[in-house]
């Protein structure tokens, strides 16, 4: 403060004595700059770790490449090849199918689990205990959780041998592993909690008197759920849906492991292109995927206003 003021005033003013005008100018300048400085840490983080990587991908998506190098250029061939290839459309369809199935199943499971925890467990300590039990699977890595399905679902796995031993089936069930079934099963297993948590959070905010008021008005059990609890859980459902849909849309490892290479997703397609060093093609694919996912999220936010939850 003093230093700046001294610099701003002519030499004959003794140092340490601020001229009134200089101080005011200084304070005004500071007031203009302060908000930018306060916003700077977040802005810098976002620029470094979000904006620059995305811009890089966007730039690279217009580059050219051959089997050995990537050539800086501006070509639309990456997009043209991607959008005209039937493989892309089939893969997108497949990915959207996985996302839709996973979303629907996790929604039902998530709503049911959250409803049970929030409305049927009376004591808060039991609620917390059971809620923590739900998070136990997260203590191991995704890959391990996926791989552990393999010995269970395999042709000679636990489930098949048990069913055969019990005389329920004669032949091992083939659809259990390396199929769409096992892919969706793994997705549901990995992502159900992302649906449970926000819905549970929404439900815990519902005033219990509302349930009594609904009962007082003659609502049966399912009518209470449908007319009161479900509408008031919508923000949680929207947040959970955004988690699940974006995670499934971007996944490649689950599809690779659980389908045994027989099914594909956009993420897997991008991963394959990267392993073949076709970075521009992978970048173009990533840009399209980003656009599609953003559109899906925007659609969900149009249906539900999640602001009151944040």
């Amino acid at each position, binding site marked *: 403060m003093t230093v700046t003021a001294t610099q701003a005033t002519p030499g004959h003013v003794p140092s340490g004595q601020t001229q009134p005008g200089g101080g005011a100018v200084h304070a005004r300048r500071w007031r203009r700059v302060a908000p930018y400085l306060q916003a700077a840490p977040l802005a810098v983080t976002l620029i470094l770790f979000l904006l620059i990587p995305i811009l890089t991908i966007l730039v690279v998506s217009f580059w050219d490449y051959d089997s050995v190098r990537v050539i800086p250029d501006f070509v639309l061939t990456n997009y043209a090849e991607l959008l005209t290839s039937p493989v892309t459309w089939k893969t997108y369809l497949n990915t959207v199918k996985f996302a839709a199935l996973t979303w629907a199943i996790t929604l039902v499971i998530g709503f049911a689990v959250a409803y049970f925890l929030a409305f049927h467990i009376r004591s808060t300590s039991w609620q917390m205990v059971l809620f923590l039990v739900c998070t136990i699977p997260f203590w191991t890595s995704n890959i391990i959780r996926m791989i552990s399905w393999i010995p269970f679902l395999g042709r000679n796995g636990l489930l098949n041998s048990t069913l055969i031993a019990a005389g329920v089936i004669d032949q091992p069930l083939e659809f259990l592993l390396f199929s769409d079934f096992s892919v969706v099963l793994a997705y549901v297993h990995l992502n159900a909690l992302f649906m449970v948590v926000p819905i549970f959070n929404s439900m815990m905010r519902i005033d219990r008197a509302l349930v009594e008021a609904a*009962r007082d*008005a*003659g609502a049966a059990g399912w009518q209470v759920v449908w007319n009161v609890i479900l509408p008031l859980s919508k923000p949680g459902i929207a947040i959970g849906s955004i988690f699940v849909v974006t995670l499934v849309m971007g996944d490649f490892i689950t599809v690779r492991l659980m389908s045994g290479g027989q099914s594909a997703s956009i993420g897997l397609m991008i991963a394959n292109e990267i392993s073949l060093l076709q970075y521009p093609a992978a970048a173009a694919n990533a840009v399209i995927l980003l656009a599609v996912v953003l559109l899906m999220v925007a659609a969900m936010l149009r249906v539900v206003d999640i602001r009151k939850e944040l």
Partner: protein
Amino acid sequence: MTTGSGAGTTAGSTVELVKLTKAYGATVAVDAIDLRVAAGAYCCLLGPSGCGKTSTLRMIAGHEDVSDGDLLIGDQVVNGEPPARRGTAMMFQSYALFPHLDCTDNVAFSLKMKGVAVEERRRRAREMLDLVDMGKYAARLPAQLSGGQQQRVALARALITRPGVLLLDEPLSALDPFLRDKMREELKRLHRELGITFIHVTHSQTEAMALADLVVVMSQGRIEQAGPPRELFNRPRTAFVARFIGGHNVIQSADGLCAVRADRVQLGGGDLRTDGTVRALEYHGASVHLSLDVAGAEDFAVILDETRFYDAPLSIGAPVQIGWNRADAHPLAS
């Protein structure tokens, strides 16, 4: 149970509690109480917090299971019946309006549950909103209303089921004093117009006195006394009732405990006399309230007419002789 439509007049139902008990584990919240509320009466359950009045109301409403005893509404035992089959409707302390529904749909909620068509139920909900003067707010969400307006909507929602008994859980406690007096009048008007039974839980004796035909004073899960307000005020049965409804001095005399109304105590007069000193005095407009230190009573209150007091004013610390007539000393059960 009344399902009459059109006319708008619904007959009230009697409510009868027979040895009604509510226990939570080892704690007994309501201890075998007997009470009969006549059809169309305005009954106030009055007592300090934790006295069992809210548990009693919630049992009548069907939001709390009856541990023991019987509950009759009309001439039916309704112990295990769900709330909607009892012909009761409850107005909750926090109003419990559905935040995602506008006023019309809030009021129409019970009709929707019964499967009444949209047009019909909205029309009836708007009629009900008009009854409580909320017609012009029909399209608003609860969050856009003031506390008093929310309460009117809650009232309309309770009344649309045409209940025989309306249950009110501390309906006025969340309002500011001015609105409270206005809503009190409004409740009384509705009670007169609808002719149904009102059961109203409160911890305010003024509210109970002002509204009820039947005041039920409760303490520790039991009924201390039930009767019309005048009877309670003039003949409190126990020291608890005398203290809780206020305006009384509880005095240990030769014949046992007795109650003397604070406004019947005279300075320097009366058949029975004692001495005291003035501890505090408050000017209340029409009257002056004195607090005295008197041997044998914890807290002795005297209410004097304003003009009479200022004819011979007293100051704090002044010794006084007080007295009352034998007829004004009302003996209490211990």
